[in-house]
């Protein structure tokens, strides 16, 4: 996974590309007004590309595509998105749903976003680009505590402080070498 992709992810975040209707319009929203949409061909690929600009509200350095939250994209008379919640009770789901609808509105077709569980989201679904973006932000990838490394200094001399962290999908660790607390994605 390229350094460039990380930088792009960060650039997007810094530009405020969390494109919920209640947040400041970012690059994605600016690039994709309704006029642009009218000219954009609606295919699974273009829809995926658009979804790749919707950042997770709780982990704004990664997109919902990088997190593996898109179960399927079906383009027909409507655009149907199967969204796989990372956790059943994830409070960000409604925000993500409205951000997806907002972003895809540019295609000029009805959008239907449905949460589904028949394909369970697991931490294995995070893409290499997503893992790298998380690591850059100081969040270690999902591993057993014994295999978790400090995202800052790569030390294996780390301790699990708490399985439960600031969001449902994260645990708290402490690095005994660089003395930095850090978070890790919970393996599920």
């Amino acid at each position, binding site marked *: 996974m390229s350094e460039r992709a990380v930088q792009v992810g960060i650039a997007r975040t810094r530009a405020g590309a969390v494109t919920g209707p209640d947040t400041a319009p970012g690059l994605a929203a600016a690039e994709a007004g309704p006029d642009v949409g009218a000219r954009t061909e609606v295919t699974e690929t273009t829809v995926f590309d658009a979804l790749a600009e919707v950042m997770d509200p709780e982990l704004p350095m990664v997109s919902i595509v990088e997190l593996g939250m898109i179960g399927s994209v079906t383009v027909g008379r409507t655009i149907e998105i199967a969204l796989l919640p990372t956790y059943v*009770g*994830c409070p960000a789901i409604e925000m993500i749903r409205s951000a997806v609808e907002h972003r895809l509105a540019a295609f000029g077709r009805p959008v239907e976003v449905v949460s589904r*569980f028949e394909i*369970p989201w697991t931490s294995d679904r995070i893409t290499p680009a997503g893992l790298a973006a998380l690591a850059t932000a100081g969040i270690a990838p999902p591993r057993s505590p014994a295999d978790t490394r400090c995202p800052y200094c790569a030390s294996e001399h780390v301790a699990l*402080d708490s*399985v*439960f962290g600031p969001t*449902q999908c994260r645990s*708290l660790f402490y690095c005994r070498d660089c003395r930095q607390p850090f978070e890790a994605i*919970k393996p599920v």
Partner: protein
Amino acid sequence: MTAAAPAGPALEALLCSMADDEFVIGSSDSEWTGIAPVLEEDVAMSSLAQDEIGHAAALYGLLAGLTGRDADALAYDRPPDDYRHARLLDHGRGDWAMTIARRYLYETADAVRLDALVGGSWSPLADLVGKLRREERYHRMHVEAWLERLAGAGGESRDRLETALRSLAPDAATVFTPLPDEPELVRAGVLEAPMPALEGRWRETVEPVLRALDLPAPAPGAAPPDGREGHGEAFRWLWGEFTSVRAADPGATW
């Protein structure tokens, strides 16, 4: 597209019992936010509460799909006597030992119940349960560690844990209270085995653990038929708390 629901009223009773269980224990857990014994546990109990209330929301959502009622109305607009959670969850938040004892008895029972549902014939529930089990695994790890810690600490920690387990013992098995028309659920393949059989599996799980720690075991005998009714004062207080925002401005939207 939703798979046709088998065994209508029986399935509704099952979903209501599970949703109410998760909603009530989640609401009890959330009482620790801000006042847990240590910071990590403040975060943990808040996260657990968020999980459980999220699970309740998903289950109320399935129930809403079957009954045509609104999921929020199911969660918030019923009088206290209409809730069908297990009486195990009716003892009030209590102290930290009570919270751990209740969570231990409930999480182990819930795990047995989820195991009996994951291969079920009604896919909306079986799919959801598949996802719930992945999350509940962390809940069990958390509470089992605390059970051992309090039991092994001796002194006041152990005394309080024993007191809590003794006061919960008569209601410990009420998660397995037989449901109305339960044989229908088993016949339709939604639930793999009837509640008394699940209760047996649960006792085989928890009794050796409690015995090894020399802790009070659940009272013998099957779950009483009214184990999901007759909620007392502690629940009425909790109900008043969790409905207070909704009641403050009926019909408000975010």
